[in-house]
């Protein structure tokens, strides 16, 4: 698999003073920016600097056009009608599943389930896979850098079954402590659920090792890929993970759609998640036969157009190339880290050696919310708060952080705008 970890060396490239376009080959950022209409606007009279893509990413015209065209020309329900429009909608929907397969690197299209997002993907696995298998005293293992969506579903299923949630610790850089993780893998461990890339810290987890250590003990692994998919090529087949789930809206796609990959054998054994239309083969009042995967997990009319929009993004990003994207973002991360390093009052939270382009930071003497408000007045959009990762905030003993999260449409000039805006914070609070 082509992982960002491979492009990130321990010695970041010297990039100080390189002009705004950066040294990244193969990515024409000015051209890319023209594909995103939202980036053209001004906020409080200043050109928008959108650094909140980890919360939700902006949308390319190719996706917006695909959604529009699907509603205007090819819209009907799927897997239902014999008429032409239903056939076209079904073809487009199942075509999007094939694109989802490509995105995830899955071997089979039937291993790809459309869900509402990462949160639903995790809940589905918790309820349909874990719940029937967990017994009192069993353990589910997560890490200390999980998003709430990879904590709470496990707490619920543990409560339902009497299982215990165990948490692998992280170090002061925000990296998984692999030795401690290995020790926590016990004969009681039934599942590992871990984030691929941390939303609050940017840490890229050593997922190949995480999976290998678990598999050696016969423990299946779910990866939360919400923050990985927009930044690097995913290859679930090469990773050998058992479940992998992503959100469309963080991947420049529509809201309300996401993907869950599940290994074929596991999906086949699993109970349905919800009951309804679409997920059945035949229904009588005495007995219902379920459809096979993936439709078994897609009760009701699905988010047809959302899936089509997500598929359009897969095509769009393939054209640009995930390697070019990863290289460009790594340059932005290096540059932003250097520029923040010049400001003694700024502390970066999350300094993992393998890191995605997320810079979580605190400004001495100023609360993250005040930082967020002042940056917004400067046209710079960042997230301020606990990033749905309160245990991470506790680990680093901060109530909240401001977080600049980059996507491939951001520029070095925007990093400068961010740093200047933080200067305003210091002017007021310094």
């Amino acid at each position, binding site marked *: 698999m082509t992982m960002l970890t491979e492009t990130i060396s321990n010695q970041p490239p010297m990039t100080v003073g390189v002009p705004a376009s950066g040294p990244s080959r193969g990515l024409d950022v000015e051209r890319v920016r023209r594909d995103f209409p939202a980036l053209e606007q001004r906020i409080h009279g200043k050109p928008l600097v959108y650094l909140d893509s980890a919360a939700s990413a902006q949308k390319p015209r190719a996706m917006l056009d695909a959604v529009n065209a699907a509603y205007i020309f090819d819209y009907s329900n799927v897997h239902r009608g014999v008429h032409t429009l239903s056939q076209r909608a079904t073809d487009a929907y199942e075509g999007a599943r094939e694109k989802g397969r490509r995105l995830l690197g899955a071997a089979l299209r039937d291993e790809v389930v459309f869900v509402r997002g990462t949160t639903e993907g995790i809940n589905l696995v918790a309820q349909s896979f874990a719940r029937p298998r967990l017994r009192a005293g069993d353990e589910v293992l997560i890490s200390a850098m999980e998003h709430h969506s990879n904590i709470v579903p496990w707490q619920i299923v543990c409560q339902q079954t009497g299982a215990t949630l165990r948490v692998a610790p992280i170090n002061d850089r925000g990296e998984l402590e692999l030795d401690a993780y290995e020790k926590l893998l016990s004969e009681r461990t039934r599942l590992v659920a871990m984030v691929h890339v941390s939303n609050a810290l940017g840490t890229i987890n050593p997922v190949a090792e995480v999976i290998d250590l678990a598999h050696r003990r016969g423990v299946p692994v779910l990866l939360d890929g919400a923050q990985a998919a927009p930044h690097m090529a995913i290859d679930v087949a090469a990773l050998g993970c058992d479940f992998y789930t992503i959100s469309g809206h963080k991947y420049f796609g529509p809201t309300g759609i996401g993907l869950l990959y599940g290994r074929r054998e596991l999906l086949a054994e699993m109970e349905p998640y919800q009951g309804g239309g679409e997920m059945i083969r035949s229904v009588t009042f005495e007995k219902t036969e379920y459809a096979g995967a993936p439709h078994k997990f897609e009760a009701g009319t699905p988010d047809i157009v959302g899936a089509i929009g997500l598929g359009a993004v897969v095509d769009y990003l393939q054209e640009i190339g995930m390697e070019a994207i990863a290289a460009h973002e790594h340059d932005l991360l290096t540059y932003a880290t250097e520029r923040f390093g010049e400001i003694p009052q700024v502390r970066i939270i999350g300094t993992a050696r393998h890191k995605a382009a997320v810079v979580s930071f605190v400004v001495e003497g100023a609360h*993250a*919310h005040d930082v967020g408000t*002042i940056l917004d*007045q400067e046209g710079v959009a960042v997230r*301020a708060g*606990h990033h749905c990762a*309160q245990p991470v905030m506790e680990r680093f003993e901060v109530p909240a952080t401001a977080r600049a999260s980059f996507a491939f449409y951001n520029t070095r000039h925007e990093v400068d705008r961010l740093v200047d805006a933080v200067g305003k914070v210091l002017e007021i*609070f310094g």
Partner: protein
Amino acid sequence: MDLREIYQEVILDHYRKPRNFSVLEEANHRAAGHNPLCGDRIDVYLTVKDGVVEEVSFQGSGCAISTASASLMTEAVKGKPVEEVERLFQSFHAMVTGKGDAPEAGVDLGKLEALAGVREIPIRVKCATLAWHTLKAALAEDSEPVTTE
């Protein structure tokens, strides 16, 4: 909008040096407030005697707006009859939400007017009102923690 309208000197001063920032052991009214959106937390303590707020204090952590608002609030309500405190809250609320044109007749917001700029940033209104909602809960002796959501 000029950021200095929000982050006035009086706000920054009360943020850096919050007044009445302590636990009031002898309080006969207390309540906890929480803004789950940003994680701001506050505890408000009151000693009310014969319908008058004799002592008031707060503890907690939050942004400049919520901390300064709590600090200014304690100064504003100390020594005031409970009914007057309630009128003060109504006027303050109207000011920061931009609802209602002028403060109620006969209510002088005094230093609290420093927070008027918050109405320009609707998403921060809850920061300014958290302490007041918590105060109200303390007066009503609600046992449940107050939340802004």
